[in-house]
């Protein structure tokens, strides 16, 4: 007799579990070596607490009531629960704080390869460490962890969440017109972006700039592109780049079009790519204002990797050899 399980969830049997365990053991070893401490938080939280993270993809997708009528939610990532822990349990503690986790998160995604409604995430949060030092430390831990897992061909796309909004503001695009343009960028539609830019009636050189800058991606030479409007964000990326060990710097693809659906990112953002998988393996970024929403204002940065996607990429790399 067979019994179904919900769409987007799965069972793991011993052969696969052993391989997943090897990956999570490698990650744990690197996180502990880098002096991060493991934390666990409840799978269920009060919905109103998680909603402090703001709207967007971070909003919890699954809610239920307890016997008292409280609205509970399944966490959609670990960043929000850790922000809560920092504000509540480390209200006066000296910083920086370093946490790592291995935990399930729950998202309302269309189930497909490596994308589950219940996903196992491994990651770190570095709290109270401002840019650029905190960002460089996080990227270094990320690279070390991916190498320890056994991935050889991964690259890290690095951009800045504030870059495109700053570019729009510098060219006099009114605040209320930013939404449609950013929507086209988030949905990866450059044809739509060109159409929306056309509606602004800007002079040709400026319209061209707004369309081409977010399509720039490549090596550190990109950080030298002209334009005062970009100077703030590019200066930040240059400062991070200067702090990276060469092994890490060699993995970086600067991406001036990188944007996020999660509402809480403020500065540097990054995605992990591997040629063996068609979707990013994980990502992260700076969220300098999020913990302040929970009551203790601290700059922070972190990343999350989806363990199942690391596994698919690892087996895919073996096949490409």
């Amino acid at each position: 007799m067979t019994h179904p399980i919900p769409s987007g969830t799965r069972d793991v049997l011993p052969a696969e579990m052993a391989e997943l365990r090897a990956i999570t053991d490698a990650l744990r070893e690197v996180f502990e070596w880098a002096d991060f401490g493991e934390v666990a938080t409840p799978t269920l939280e009060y919905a109103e607490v998680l909603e402090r993270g703001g709207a967007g993809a971070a909003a919890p997708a699954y809610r239920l009531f307890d016997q008292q009528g409280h609205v509970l939610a399944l966490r959609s990532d670990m960043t929000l629960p850790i922000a809560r822990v920092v504000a509540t349990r480390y209200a006066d503690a000296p910083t920086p704080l370093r946490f790592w986790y291995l935990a399930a998160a729950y998202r309302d995604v269309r189930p497909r390869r490596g994308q589950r409604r219940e996903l196992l995430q491994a990651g770190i949060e570095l709290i109270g460490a401002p840019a650029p030092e905190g960002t460089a430390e996080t990227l270094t831990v990320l690279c070390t962890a991916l190498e320890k897992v056994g991935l050889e061909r991964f690259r890290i796309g690095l951009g800045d969440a504030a870059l495109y909004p700053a570019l729009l503001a510098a060219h006099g695009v009114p605040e209320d017109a930013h939404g449609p343009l950013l929507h086209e960028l988030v949905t990866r539609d450059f044809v739509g972006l060109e159409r929306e830019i056309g509606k602004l009636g800007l002079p040709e050189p400026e319209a061209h700039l707004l369309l081409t800058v977010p399509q720039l991606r490549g090596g550190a030479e990109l950080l030298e592109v002209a334009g005062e409007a970009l100077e703030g964000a590019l200066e930040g990326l240059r400062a991070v780049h200067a702090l990276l060990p060469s092994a890490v710097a060699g993995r970086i693809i600067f991406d001036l079009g990188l944007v996020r659906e999660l509402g809480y990112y403020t500065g540097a953002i990054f995605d992990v790519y591997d040629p063996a998988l068609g979707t990013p393996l994980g990502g992260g970024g700076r969220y300098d204002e999020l913990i302040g929403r929970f009551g203790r204002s601290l700059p922070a940065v972190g990343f999350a990797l989806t363990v199942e996607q690391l596994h698919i990429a690892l087996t895919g790399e073996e096949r490409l050899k």
Partner: protein
Amino acid sequence: MSVERLTIAVPRGALFGETLDLLQRIGIDTAELRANDRKLLFADVGLITMRPSDVPTYVEAGAADVGITGKDVLMERSERAVYELLDLGYGRCTMVVATVAGPDPMAEALRRLGTVRIATKYPKIATTHFERTGRQAEIVEVKGSVELAPLTGLVEGIVDLTATGTTLAENGLVVREEVSVSTARLIANPVAHKLKAAAIDALIRNLRAG
């Protein structure tokens, strides 16, 4: 710097001929594709052929780095995570709402029954169009000739793609509304877009010039 080779998903069907012409103009040998309509994978030239509606599936998964398909397909499969890079301009056709000629049977159905029945191969586009225009619609998904549905009383109207309107006219149907205009688009896998940036940018430059 050496530029990595791309795997390109090519749509068979209405866009096939013009897509091959375009690829030929930018220096990709398409002779074997023209000669052999059973073969699907042409590894020597980095081309794979498939139904237009499968192109986003292959590109999203990274089985093809880039692909060409109609905007109608992308609208119907808008949940697919792919980059839309270029409007190629050809394969122009219009998504329309059509009914039998004479008094509009949709108006009668909406007035007396409150709901209009619509047959389509594009349930997402049809649902969005009727929601956006504030009408209740019962969307009936069909796989084959949509024109049959209003002639047999299955539905009052259809949402379908038309290039010249000939098939509609031959079946006694008239266009009541235009939903959107569709052309061929170049799409790319999100990871390939970063890891094979030089090759993809070169392809875009060539396609713009071609």
